Every structure is written in C-alpha cells, then in structure tokens.
C-alpha cells in the first residue's frame, strides 16, 4: 500500500502543473449557499477545477461513465479524458420495469450516448478486453492498448443467463418466459408474456437472482404490477401467483422488507423462502429451484426469470476484482473502498455503478451519489490532497406497488431510511412518488448524465 501511495504522490507531482494549479468558480458557486434539505436525485455540481494534463480513461459509457466524463470535463482543465464503450445506444434502465408492465413504450428508454459525451472527451468505440492496472493500461477488443494515469471503471454488469440451466435471452417472450433486465427488447417481450398471462391466467412464478443484482426492487415491482393489472382487468381470480425468494427476505431495508412480507400475502401472492432458480425447461414450462431440502420443480404458465449477475469477465478476471470474500464469491465485483470508491490496491483507480462490490447500491440513484465522490476524490488524488468525499451507501427505489402509487424508499449502508423529502413518508404508498418515477426521474437521470445534478 505504501508503494502505491508513493506512486500516487509521484503521479500527482508529474501531472499537476503547480503554476497553473488554481481553483475556478463553478457555475453554481453562488447558488451553493441556497442548498436546501434535499434529494439524492438533485444534488450540487462540482465546485472546483484543476489544471492538469493527466490521462484519464473511463471504461463504460453507462450512467456512471457518462456522468463521470461530464463532471471531470467540467472540473479539470487540460486533462485528456478518454471514454471507452462500443455501445452507441444509451438505455434508461430504470424505465424497463415500466416497459415490461405495459406502462411505457420501449422508445422511452432508448437514447444515444453521443448526446451526452462532452466535446473535449475522446470516445473510443470498442470494448475493453483486458485490464492491466500494474502497467496502467487497458487493452480493447480491437487490439488497441490505451495507457492511462488514472482509471475510472464503470463497466456495468453482466446478466448471467447461462447460470440458469436451459435459460437463454432468446427464450424471453416465448413459452411464458419474461425477464425485465438488460434491454428494452427483453422488457417488451416480457410485456407480451405478462399481457397474455393477466388475460389467460394460470400459475405465475416470480423469481429473484441471488446476491447483488441491479435494481433489486424490479422483481418485486414486476410481481405487484402484474397483480395490479390482473385486478384491473377483472381476472385476478384466474392467477395463482408465487414469489420465490432465494433468501429469507424480500428487501434489504428492514422496514420495507416487513411491509412487503405483509403486502404480498394480503394480495394473495404466495412466498417461498430459500428458493433459487437453477434450471428451466421451456417446452414443459417447468422451473427447478434449489432449496435447503433439495431441488423442487414448479410448473408455470408465466415465469419472471431474474438471473444472477456478476462483473463483466474482463473486469472480474482482472486484478481489479475482489480477490477473496463475499464480493469475490458473489460476482467477481470490482474492489473499491466502500466510502471513497477508490481501489485499495491501485490508488489511481476508482469505480462506480453496477460493477463495484459494495454492500448495496446497484441503482441509478446510487450512481448519482457515487459519481461526485469518485470525481472529487480523483481530483484530490491528482492534486495530491487528502480524499475527503465519502459515499454513504445511498440508494433509492421508487417501489411501485400499483399503477398510480409508489413508496419512495431511500436508505444507506446502515439500512437507515434517509428520505430526501421529509414530507413524503418512506413507509407509505403515495401518488407523488409515482409521478416522480413516471414523469420526472428520467429528467433527473438525464441531468445527472450531463453532470448537472
């Protein structure tokens, strides 16, 4: 660690031009004093700028990567920032649940990365196939080697359909199989299945992948919105709904867990504990669940498959991944200090978003809270200052319980509720969080991508 810290100081000396080192007023500096008790969705802009010729590479142009690129380009003067991602399409993933339940059109979740890449950032359209943090470089799948002084890893995660025997993404939309995750095409085909299921009825299995998954509220929302839709259509009595949880709870936040444990039975959704989906036989419409008592098979008419998730292979197999412990076993997640978001073994490397191994926080709201910390602390490293920014684990889930109502759940590493709006109860269904989810969160998300909140 000492060797790394010395390296960090050397890097800072080499990269920062002390003669040009200065602080610039941020756009909202005068406004900063007007800050109010607030939200994880709306927050302050970077407050300082620094002259540097540092080479900064950001791997991944998802929510975290684009937000970091915009913040860094506004915060640093002279830095050579490179963004690496093959994808031209940007997906508003928090909207996929709404697409899968027929509330949004798929186009509402589709955008273009180009609209959010800052002009002074080089965008390399390739995928990183190898991380070599000892040599400060990454290698792309096109064979290019890109050297860096600082690295921000925001690759997102891999939805591991192969971890379920017999399952593949091509099955989504066939044989009663749905999966809200990954892209709007999956969500659209899931809607076709839910639309049919809530008309024809039968046995519906709702699952959740074990370990860290993105937007852990999504499987619950899909179950509740399906039930709500069947009620509205007057077909509820045709549906037998079962939620198979891989563990002993439904939600990591205890108050919300308790609410859901009462809400599901109230809505006649049966719950099975310690049921992990391990196999599927599409033609027979049969699913196998691993339980403490051995494998159990369920016949179904509709199944919402939520596979396990893990870091992309290039990251998970690199030295940047956790080498041991629960985050290594769970999904080969990237190792970071849970508060500073800095890599403990490679201090010129930071991580944010779905790919990092932190106790909670694979949501867009977490990205909103993490990225300013990453940028502030990276700037501090470049300037040779102490790291002061800290991520408290903030995450948020507008938990939609029915069309028109949601609970705005926000909590931190301690699993304490940290409501941004004290006047909105985090324990009760309201109309206002529904409007936020349906109408305003995408606007907040886009502002986040631009580094403005």
């Amino acid at each position: 660690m000492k060797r790394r810290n010395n390296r960090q100081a050397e890097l800072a000396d080499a990269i920062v031009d002390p003669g040009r080192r200065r602080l610039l007023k941020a756009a909202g500096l005068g406004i900063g004093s007007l800050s109010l008790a607030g939200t994880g969705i709306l927050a302050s802009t970077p407050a300082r700028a620094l002259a540097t010729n540092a080479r900064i590479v950001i791997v991944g142009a998802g929510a975290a990567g684009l937000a970091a690129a915009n913040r860094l380009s506004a915060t640093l003067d002279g830095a050579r920032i490179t963004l690496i991602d093959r994808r031209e399409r940007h997906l508003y993933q928090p909207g996929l649940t709404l697409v899968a339940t027929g509330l949004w059109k798929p186009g509402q979740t589709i955008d273009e990365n180009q609209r959010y890449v800052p002009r002074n950032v080089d965008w390399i359209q390739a995928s990183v196939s190898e991380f070599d943090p000892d040599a400060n470089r990454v290698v792309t799948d096109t064979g290019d080697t890109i050297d860096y002084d600082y690295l921000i890893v925001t690759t997102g995660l891999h939805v591991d359909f192969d971890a379920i025997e017999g399952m593949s993404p091509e099955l989504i939309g066939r044989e009663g199989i749905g999966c809200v995750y990954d892209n709007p095409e999956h969500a659209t085909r899931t809607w076709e299945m839910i639309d049919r299921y809530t008309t024809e009825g039968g046995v519906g299995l709702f699952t959740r992948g074990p370990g860290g998954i993105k937007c852990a509220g999504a499987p619950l929302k899909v179950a509740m919105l399906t039930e709500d839709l069947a009620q509205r259509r007057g077909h509820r009595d045709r549906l037998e709904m079962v939620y198979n949880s891989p563990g002993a709870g439904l939600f990591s936040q205890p108050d919300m867990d308790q609410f859901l444990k009462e809400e599901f039975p109230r809505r006649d959704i049966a719950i099975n504990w310690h049921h992990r989906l391990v196999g599927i036989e599409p033609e027979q419409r049969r699913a196998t669940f691993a339980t403490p008592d051995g494998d159990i098979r369920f016949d179904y008419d509709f199944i919402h498959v939520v596979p396990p998730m893990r870091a992309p292979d290039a990251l998970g197999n690199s030295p940047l991944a956790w080498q041991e412990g629960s985050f290594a076993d769970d999904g080969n997640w990237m190792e970071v200090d849970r508060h500073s978001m800095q890599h403990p073994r490679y201090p010129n490397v930071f991580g944010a978003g779905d790919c990092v191994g932190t106790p909670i926080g694979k949501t867009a709201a977490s990205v909103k809270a993490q990225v300013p910390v990453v940028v502030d602390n990276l700037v501090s490293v470049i300037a040779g200052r102490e790291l002061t920014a800290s991520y408290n684990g903030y995450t948020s889930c507008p938990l939609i319980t029915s069309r028109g109502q949601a609970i705005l759940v926000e909590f931190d590493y301690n699993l304490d509720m940290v409501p941004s709006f004290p006047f909105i109860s985090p324990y009760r269904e309201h109309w206002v969080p529904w409007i936020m989810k349906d109408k305003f969160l995408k606007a907040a998300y886009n502002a986040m991508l631009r580094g403005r909140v």
Partner: protein
Amino acid sequence: MAFSIFGILAVLLEFIRPFLPLILAVVIIELMLLVVALRRNGLLNTFRALKSTVPIGVVGFVIGIFTVPWMTGAERSNLAGIIDWLSLFGASFALGLIAMLLVWPPFALFRHRAS
C-alpha cells in the same frame, strides 16, 4: 443529501427539453402579441386584461383537479395523505396560471378592439 436551485433548474430543463421548440415558439408568439397589445392599449389596460383571464384560470384549475391524476395514469383513489392532495392542488394551480398567461395577450388585444 443537499440539492441546489441549479440542480432543480437542470432537472426542469431536461423535463421540458423534448418540448423546448414548441414552448419557445409559444412564448415568442405570446410576447409579440403582448408587445402589440401594450403599444395599442397602454400598460394599464393591458394589465387590466389580465383580470379578465381569471375565470379562464379558475376553469383551468378545476379541470386540473379532475384530470391531473388521470393524466399521470393514476386515479383519484391513489391520492393518499396531505402531500398528495397539496401536490394535486399545486399542479392544478399551475395549470390555471398557465391558462391565464396563455390567453392574456389575445385578451389584451381583444380589449383594445372592443374599446
């Protein structure tokens, strides 16, 4: 977490961004009408015309009370607690205000012709 006025404005900007050309066109037309009204009718009469738009604002408010939940895909029964009702009244008030402001310049011109 803290948020800033800058942050709120940034979110509002993103919210209206898809409609920005339409909003700008309407605002420009309204401003042009208002300038014409001011020139023909004078400051006092133009502002008096604003009073005439109050019934339109009230109608907009009442329509808002009945339709805003529906416009959000919700139903009246989804409103639970004072914060939801205050939000509904606030949104409806804003709807009424916008209706008033939209009809104000044409009303000001109409007043001139009538007088």
